């Protein structure tokens, strides 16, 4: 699925399905685990799966023929993750996440947005050239 263009970069173009999202998350985990250990790999894999799942469910509304682009670049000890899609403009950072004191309501959703915000050192959204572009540093 993914392409490791050189030892410090990873590129993948995936279809808009939850199975493909799970596969790319596992590949990202493996790519980073080999270079920086399991803890950072877990964080990156989780960010990728949460963001791409939102795109599949709410951006493309489960239309499997659409595409998502995932890029990872290593910069010394940190990584830049870029996730792009061509669905309607959707900035996940504008959405409210869960209230951590109301765990009984977690099943209704909102955990993903909380995790995306919490696990990123830096996160930026923009919409340009017909694409949602989410850039994350971990």
């Amino acid at each position, binding site marked *: 699925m993914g392409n490791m263009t050189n030892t410090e970069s990873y590129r993948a173009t995936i279809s808009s399905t939850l199975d493909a999202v*799970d596969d790319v998350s596992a590949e990202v*985990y493996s790519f980073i685990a080999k270079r920086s250990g399991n*803890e950072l790999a877990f964080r990156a894999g*989780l960010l990728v799966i949460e963001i791409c*799942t939102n795109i599949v469910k709410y951006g493309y509304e489960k239309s499997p023929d659409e595409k998502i682009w995932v890029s990872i670049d290593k910069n010394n000890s940190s990584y830049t993750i870029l996730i792009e899609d061509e669905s309607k403009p959707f900035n996940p950072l504008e959405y409210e996440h869960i209230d951590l004191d109301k*765990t009984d309501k*977690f099943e209704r959703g909102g*955990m993903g947005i*909380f*995790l995306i915000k919490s696990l990123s050192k830096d996160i930026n959204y923009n919409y340009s050239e017909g694409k949602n572009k989410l850039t994350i540093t971990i």
Partner: protein
Amino acid sequence: MFYLEKRDKGAAIISSEEEFRLTGKISAELKEWFKKQRLDSLETIIFDCQNIIFIDSMGIASIISIYKSITSSGKQMLLSGLRKEVKDILTLLKLDKLFVMDDRKPEEIIKDL
């Protein structure tokens, strides 16, 4: 993929023989599998999590769903053997306040019931 093994003292262990990622499809399978289990005579269910190598929000939601189902019928549920990364995510979500997380092996927990 999942097993419910009944033990002494009204306890049972939920486990998997293989390592797995508790994400989308597997989360749905776990919830469906759990609905078919008979827990009538049980008091304590230990979810042996040592083989969960990765978890996402859907996986966490499936554990919450199972936890609610078990505790609403007056039984207790414990999570054992959580890997550090999985435990850290549950703690980040303050789910350590909801779940009982025990680092011991299920057999050791049952011995002390």
